């Protein structure tokens, strides 16, 4: 945070930063809507295939891809945390703020990852259309 980066690097840094903080939350929202929507709509139509793909695989993708995205966000949060840690004397207050968001991002990504993985476990044990 010492040298002033160019606008491109700033944009990339900014995107990475928000990915680290909110990536897990967004991934989980996508997982929930996609998993639930695909499962319920397909079952309601009385089939267990969706466009030729087995339903289980489609729902599996709605679990695995968001889970991977969340793992990425988790790593980004760790990176952010290490960059803003340890606190130095006379630091800029944006470093303190960055560290707060890094910690918040880290724990929330972990939490969302847990939720998604629990959904994945359910997928392993439950037939997709059982009521």
């Amino acid at each position, binding site marked *: 945070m010492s040298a002033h980066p160019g606008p491109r690097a700033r944009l990339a840094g900014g995107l990475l930063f928000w990915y680290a903080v909110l990536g897990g939350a967004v991934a989980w929202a996508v997982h929930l809507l996609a998993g639930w929507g695909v499962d319920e709509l397909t079952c309601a139509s009385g089939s267990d295939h969706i466009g030729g793909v087995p339903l289980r695989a489609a729902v599996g993708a709605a679990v695995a891809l968001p889970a991977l995205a969340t793992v990425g966000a988790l790593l980004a949060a760790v990176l952010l945390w290490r960059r803003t840690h340890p606190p130095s004397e006379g630091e800029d207050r944006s470093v303190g703020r960055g560290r*707060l968001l890094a910690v918040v991002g880290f724990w929330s990504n972990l939490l969302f990852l847990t939720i998604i993985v629990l959904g994945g476990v359910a997928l392993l044990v439950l037939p*997709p259309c059982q009521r």
Partner: protein
Amino acid sequence: MSTTAAPVPGASREQLGRLEEHWGERPSLRAWLTTVDHKKIGRRYLVTAGLFFALAGLSALAMRTQLARPESRLLSPQEYNQLFTMHGTAMIFLFATPMLFGFGNFLVPLLIGARDMAFPKLNALGYWIFLFAGLFMWASLPFGAAPNAGWFAYVPLTGQQHTPGLHMDVYSLGLLFLGIATTAGSINFIVTALKLRAPGMSLNRVPLFVWAIVATAFMVIFALPALNLDNAMLFLDRRFGTHFFDPAAGGNVLLWQHLFWIFGHPDVYIIVMPALGIVSAVLPAFTRRGVVGYVLVVFAIVAISIISFGVWVHHMFATGLPRLSYSFFSAASTIITIPSGIQIFAWLATMLLGRLVVRVPLLFVIGFIVTFVLGGFTGTMFALTAFDQQVTDSYFVVAHFHYVLIGGAVFPILAAIYYWLPKITGRMYHEGLGRWAFWLVFAGMHVTFFPMHLYGLFGMPRRVYTYPSEPGWDGWNLVSTIGSYLLAVGLLLVVVGVVHAIRRGRPAPPDPWGGDTLEWSTDSPPKSYNFPVLPQVHSLHPNWDESSRESMGAGAEADRILADGRTTLLTSELDGRREREVEMPGSSWQPLLLALVMLLFFTAMLFAWYPVAAVAAVAVAGTVATWLWPPRRPDRELGVSA
């Protein structure tokens, strides 16, 4: 670290005079009706929500009186239906959220070191709408036309065919009307907290109460549209014969439930979250230290506000979704307990590591923890689907949600009343009276609601206006009723305490508790401009830190006094860096006027006076247009003389 005086203002006499000139209001009827001062509006929210609480409480007492004995004939079934519906609806929509928004209104600008909310006129509009919407709904009760199908108003029961009359029209129109106020208030909180924080208040220095209010506001913005849509469709179905919820014509009954609970589950957190923020705000003063694990509590607030949107289906386990989709929601419902637990442990750790100062606000906080944890415990029992099937729609559920709501909202609100009363009124309350009130409320609450678990398990259904004499029902119902009177006496003592403080209380110093946040660094009650000098914030506990305090005294700078107009400082969202000063609007008739024409519109819709409604709609558009018409700006603001 505890100081009882406001820093000697670093502003000169002459500057204070000019501030008063720009911000002060001479008391008059006109000033009363046109004010946009967040402190006055906040106070009004508190009083009005308190009145609606009293009405809803009296409805509850009437129900408990009826249920004291089996086969009682005090209330007719029709009356009972209206009473429990109005009780539930008012407690949720007209008491809990507005009361907490009242504290938010009064406190947020003071906590972040600003001179008002970001949109003061919108704030006034929100209050008037809340008042009118509340009166609109309550006014139906004396006419026997109040909502009568339960606070969650499931179709098809609420359709025109099964519930004729105005009842459910009052419900849907009233909540739509009220929704405008809640939405406006939420936008205001978000913008205020993001843009008006004192310089230096980066995100890691924002008080937990402000985090909680902002998270709540975001939840409202995302959750309320679902409820509004639901109510709009219900009204159209009932009045104009559309078929949104009519399966015979391709509509869907479950649609109501989905939309309702997409709103309804986050709403539980919308009610409880700011109350938890109050707990985090009250504890530091009475434990003499900051809340343990600030960062984790922030995380918990953010996480809850997001996850709460992914759990609504747990209210609908009986509707036959595929088990797999259901389990996606169960995962979220299970995990959301973790951040809630984190907050509880953070408070317990704060109390263990701090030095306890046992005053009335702390008693209510402890009462909150005990009650809320018990409610949470019975809540996790529902996670066992078999148990849930067994107790659904029994008094066990009524017991559970009163533990959560009274524990999670009423106790913190009472703590907040005692804690901030000195700041709001400038008077101290009577400690002995407060303690009596606490013990009566606490005992009354548990005597009323604990037995409900029992007769719920013995099979007594909820929402029955009377019951036959059954083993285990009669005796415990009588106990509940006695408890509710005890509770009422306790709440009456709270009111007596407030009135006594205002009439007879000793004048409050600026900082009676040695609090850590900025509201304690200014007068009690604060001047119209809140702070003579806007602070420069250096830490999370500015009132405990010398450099922040000094920035308002000896270290004052003219660009934080801003005595030349009605202005406050705009700062950056993340780091609280100074951007520029902004002009704030002064008193105006527009908020009241706009709320009145809206009231006319909703009343006309209710009684099907459609031409009147059309005129009112035009009037609403006209008022909004004048409101938004760009004013003639003084040259200074156009940058001419800058």
